[in-house]
């Protein structure tokens, strides 16, 4: 979005964003029953240019959600089922010796499944840290390096990883450095009773659901620019910064619960994620500037995986969501305190 446009241009761009967003959501909603917040979160990450960590017990449709999204936006989709014996070369790709047409031979790069637009990293915590760290460069720099060759990954690039919070045996918890690279951590919960009926009707009948592509990579990239054009008032920036500082133990804005129960708070990357996700929220709500409410509405999804509890917090049975809720209560938005 050019800075030289008028207010009417901004209105059109915002309207286009909402249209595309709603179309993709409808298509994904044809396959996925319920889980509106999760679908919105995944779409927000796609438009904000971030990655998503989906956490939930098996059978809740995490993989299907990402696959449906890949179908709806017509992006190159690949799925990696992480296992403990998987090596970085298995996901990144490697150089193989191939025969040329003239009878000669050469080493040629064979792409791994990491080279795609939409990567589903299924059960990412089952891979060893060595393989997990192979994702770091791809997620942050949007590139992979094999040998001395560095390859840029095609945009839009989005990693959607899933992990099961229950079966922890034989898993390798993601390091903080990698957790920080996810824009959102979305918790996929059980569906409601009414949603069960619809799930059963859709999945046990003979009728197959086909998802039609309603967008493409170019449109997604254009809408990403629109998202980044949304301005953020200083008051909202200040509020986002205070929320992030509130998660840091001993900070100026942190409640007592954080000082007692948190070992590590959010980094500045958390504030960036708050504003980016807040911009998507503002456009969804039909506004042209990010408000404090937009930031607060995404605070749990953005900050919950950036807060590491200490021993006392774990022994007290606290969750990172409890900490974020305490921070939200401690740092009121302008006008809420009066």
């Amino acid at each position: 979005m050019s800075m030289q446009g008028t207010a009417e241009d901004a209105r059109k761009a915002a309207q286009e964003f909402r249209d595309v967003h709603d179309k993709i959501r409808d298509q994904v909603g044809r396959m996925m029953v319920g889980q509106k917040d999760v679908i919105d979160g995944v779409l927000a990450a796609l438009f904000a240019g971030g990655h998503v960590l989906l956490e939930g017990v098996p059978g809740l449709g995490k993989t299907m959600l990402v696959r449906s999204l890949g179908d709806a936006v017509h992006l190159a989709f690949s799925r990696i089922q992480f296992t403990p014996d998987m090596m970085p070369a298995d996901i990144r790709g490697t150089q193989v010796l191939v025969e040329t047409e003239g009878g000669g031979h050469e080493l040629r790069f064979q792409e791994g499944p990491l080279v795609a637009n939409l990567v589903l990293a299924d059960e990412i915590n089952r891979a060893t840290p060595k393989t997990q760290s192979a994702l770091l460069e791809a997620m942050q720099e949007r590139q992979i390096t094999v040998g001395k060759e560095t390859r840029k990954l095609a945009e839009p690039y989005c990693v959607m990883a899933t992990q099961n919070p229950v079966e922890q045996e034989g898993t390798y918890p993601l390091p903080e450095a990698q957790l920080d690279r996810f824009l959102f951590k979305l918790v996929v919960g059980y569906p409601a009773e009414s949603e069960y009926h619809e799930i059963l009707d859709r999945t046990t009948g003979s009728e197959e659901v086909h998802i039609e592509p309603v967008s493409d990579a170019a449109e997604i990239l254009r809408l990403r620019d629109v998202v980044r054009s949304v301005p953020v008032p200083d008051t909202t920036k200040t509020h986002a910064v205070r929320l992030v500082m509130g998660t840091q133990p001993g900070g100026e804005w942190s409640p007592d619960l954080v000082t007692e129960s948190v070992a590590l708070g959010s980094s500045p990357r958390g504030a960036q994620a708050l504003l980016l996700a807040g911009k998507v929220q503002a456009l969804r709500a039909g506004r042209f500037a990010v408000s404090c409410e937009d930031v607060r509405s995404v605070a749990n999804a953005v900050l919950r995986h950036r807060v590491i509890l200490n021993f006392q917090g774990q022994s007290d049975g606290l969750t990172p969501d409890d900490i974020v809720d305490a921070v939200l209560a401690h740092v009121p938005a302008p006008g809420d305190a009066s």
Partner: protein
Amino acid sequence: MKPASDERRALREGLAQLHRRGHREHLSRVTRRALPAAIESGLWAAAVLPVALLALALLARFGGPHPRDIGLLQAFIGMLVIAAAVTASRLWLVRSCAIDRAEVLGECDRLLDSGGRLLAADDFIRTEADGPFVAAALQEGREALDGSRELQFPAGGSAARVRARAIGAGLAALLLAWFITHGTSLKIDQVAEVDTTVPPTAETTPDSRTPDAPVDTATQVPPETRPEPNSKPPRRGERAESAQDGTPPSDQVKDSKGRTKGGRSSAAKSSSGSGASRGAPSSQSQESTESEESAKPGKQPKPGKAENPESERKQEEDASGATAGRGSGSGSTKNPSTSDWTSKDHIEAQPDDDQGEDADVDDEESDSEARGGVQPSLRDRRPPVNRDLQIGFASGRPNPDANGRGGPSPQKKSRGVASLVLGVPIPDHIKGRANPGRTKVTQERVEPEAEDASPAVAESRRARENPVGTIERHELTPWMRELVRNYFKRAPVAQEN
């Protein structure tokens, strides 16, 4: 493209007006909310004046103006002024707190449910931000501002009322002021005296007073009983004599009687005096016993003990074999630290002491209380358990009293805490050799011996009877053949080099 400056200016003025209005409403709401607490503070502060008047009345005894001269009206006006000043200052403090502009506009946004549009527009105007989205946000802010003209701020009534405690304090202060300034029926200086004197206790024995002395002068020291500055204090013996003669006791004893219960403290003083010098057994100790017995009417005095305390003390000395009462300590004849705890005689004498022990218990308790507090019961003094660690007696019999915990014998034990004490010889309890263990090393010398071996004859091996079958031959692909060929071509060159 920048929006028209007129529109921006109009928006700026509209936001400023809204801010002023919201600020005003905010201040009035905050003031209403803080008013009860401020009034409470004023009431509590007004109570200071009657207290000051009371202090003035006390000081009036030494000369100076009396509060009666001030008058009730003046006191009431003073209280009113203090209360009003404190209340006003607190309210001023509350109102003077800076209210953030974003706070006011954020509240307007919340009331209008405009999703932060006013706040965003105000921020973009102040920072003079530019861009299509900023222009659109300013337009939205203008629409939200138009909707705010009908905005009704919440009344925000007082959240709390003035608590009854504060009202009661104010009324009590008013009553006190009236009492001080107009209370002529009771003189304030008398009230002050009553407050400062200790009420006479019921335990004061009537014989310690002069019969015709008034009750309130019992605690006042008569001037003739005060010691002269140059006169020497009476000796203890003299004091005992004076006590025997029935003359009033010294000021210390009197003071003690006035502050303690049942005259026990005075008995304690007397008994300490008796224990201070062994050569002069004080008759005060008898008196203290008598006074103690008289203080406990339900208890019958022990005939033998009360009649002959000297013989009792002697008996105790004989039983413990201690040098009791040598120093100026507690005066007790039962000093457990000086008793010989290995004494067998005492063990044997213990059953004899048990006769009439129950009757002695109360006396010992009362004695220990008379010595100034609860002390360990001296009748529990028994020799420690025999902790001899030796295996047996000389005859080989096991020592029935040994419990292996170290004991009183001078020889140090090799176990327990006693083994940590230096300078005491430790007996060697290891008899014979140490355990050599089960390891045994045996060396044998064996000469190598030659063994017969039948060598296999090559002719005895026959040809394979069955067909070998298909032998897999790995066919090389063309590029691998090329690779191998190139390798062997290059190999001689490399060797030559």
